[in-house]
């Protein structure tokens, strides 16, 4: 499903060179649910950004569904992200000016699809996360847990091959965090969605199939 080969990521400022990731080799199989753990600043989020094509590696190769990412040209990666990847962020990142349903439809706006079909799929995704009754609400009218469920609906509405979750329960209490984790588990088990989740929570990580640990930009086996 996803293969990272010899990935390096270095940031340059005027005088300093910071190595964020070093010689990362990682394969995520189709239908797998893995978690990435590590201390703050170790490169977990950078790794997730590179997996999600939000950032380009300095060196190395990424394969998604067997195809090598050859160009990081804006249009090319935008299309790949739209078709193959769904994101869930710690701070939800919902657009406050749009209603729940419009937030969920967002990834479909960048596909050739009728408004009616978009609406049908968005309703379906909201039903999947148990928020069908909240379609016309605005994000500010929802609890943190509900907002994250909207974010999950947005991430799955386009039926992506890969779901990337960056500390999805980080801003929620344990009860709500557990609810979100249950939804992710259900998506993985029932729908076969491949999920990569960055987390600090060891208990949640234990519930995934595999834990990948990062330390100082390197994978620890």
């Amino acid at each position: 499903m996803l293969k990272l080969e010899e990935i390096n990521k270095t940031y340059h400022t005027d005088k300093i060179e910071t190595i964020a990731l070093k010689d990362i080799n990682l394969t995520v199989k189709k239908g797998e649910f893995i978690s990435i753990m590590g201390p703050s600043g170790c490169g977990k989020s950078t790794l997730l950004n590179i997996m999600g094509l939000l950032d380009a590696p300095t060196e190395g190769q990424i394969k998604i569904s067997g195809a090598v990412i050859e160009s990081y040209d804006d249009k090319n990666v935008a299309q790949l992200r739209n078709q193959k990847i769904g994101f869930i962020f710690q701070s939800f990142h919902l657009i406050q000016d749009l209603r729940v349903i419009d937030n969920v439809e967002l990834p479909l706006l960048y596909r050739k699809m009728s408004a009616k079909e978009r609406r049908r799929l968005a309703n379906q995704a909201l039903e999947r996360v148990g928020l069908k009754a909240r379609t016309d609400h605005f994000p500010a009218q929802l609890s943190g847990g509900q907002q994250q469920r909207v974010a999950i609906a947005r991430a799955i509405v386009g039926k992506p091959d890969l779901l990337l979750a960056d500390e999805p329960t980080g801003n929620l209490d344990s009860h709500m965090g557990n609810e979100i984790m249950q939804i992710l588990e259900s998506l993985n088990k029932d729908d076969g969605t491949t999920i990569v989740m960055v987390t600090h929570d060891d208990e949640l990580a234990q519930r995934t199939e595999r834990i990948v640990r990062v330390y100082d930009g390197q994978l620890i086996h």
Partner: protein
Amino acid sequence: MFKNYLMTAWKVLLRRKVFSFISLFGISITLAILLILTTLLDNYLYPMGPEKNNQNFLSINRLTIISKDQQSTWSSQPGYQFLAENVNRLKAPEKISFFTGFNDGASFISGDKIINKLRRTDATYWQILDFDLIHGRTYTDEEFDAGAMVAVISQTTSKEFFGTQNSINKSFIVNNQSFEVIGVAKDVSFFENIAYSDIWVPYTTSPSTSYKLGLTSGWGAMLYHSNKNMLPEMQSEYINLLQEDFISPDPEQYHTAISGADTPIENLARDIIGADNYKADSTKLITLFMLLAVVFMLLPSINLINLNISRIMERSSEIGVRKAFGASSKQLVFQFIIENILITGIGGIIGLLISWLVLRQVESSQLIPAVQFSFSINTFVYGFSMIFVFALISGTYPAYKMSKLHPVDALKGGA
């Protein structure tokens, strides 16, 4: 997609009320001023009154005379002698009319002195211009030739002299001459500077014949042809005549005559840019107007660009999310320009409303005599073109800057 963009734009507009007010205020006022100026220009170039057929005639209203030794130059309106001895010899026009400018005409009503505008014309003047007569008629060639003391007066002047009664066949005195009213015309806008006056009388009624002498000052002419394609030929013939066969009462002193037969826009160019050419440079005038409009729009645009950039920074999370879920830079530029067109569109509509109110006020206050502004289809086309240009000027750079935000930085909330 479009609906989503408009919804976001509308919400952003409502969310930041002060910001939106400043944006809309700048746009509205700028566009209102530009629209007022455009309407004035439009009313001058495409009048609705007697000069509405101005595509069929040329006007001669400036003349420069230079002495043979080039030491002396006279520049003013043409004089009757110049017109009679030179312009009268033109063959291309179907009709030629001579008339004076509008001068003060003093009358006394119940002991009070009132000043009206008085213009002396020939009879052809009425055949070329399309006056809207409320009562009576205009003077004929026979009356003109005979120097008949007849007058056409404006509706307002009729009310002033005779109240609400029909004024036909009644007499009045202006500049110590008594005239009989034979026609009452609808008031003429000040912008129609060939037709504009309160009282029109035959120039053969002038108290003396001294007007017949003098190459310069006080007079104007119209050259008419029913086929507007003949206008360039009339212009060339006039220039040739002046260059090859100018009749001068004193060739030493009045050696060279420079003048042009102008369309309305050339007429304006001659007044604004310069009078000393055979052909007035209307392209230069249009370029100047457009340049001024752009410079005028540039200042509020820069202000809007600044405000737009700061607004983008506030919305970086949204930009990051849109990028993460598949928006390309091009799509984001498009989105932001659509949003900006919506804001400037609202500002533009307010601007149109302001300019309409101001022009109505100018009309009713009679700040410009007898003026009636029409918001023609032209005004709307100009107005919305300006709004579009404004939206592009103020939206493109911020949109470009926004689209270049790195998605990871944007999601973190900064550039």
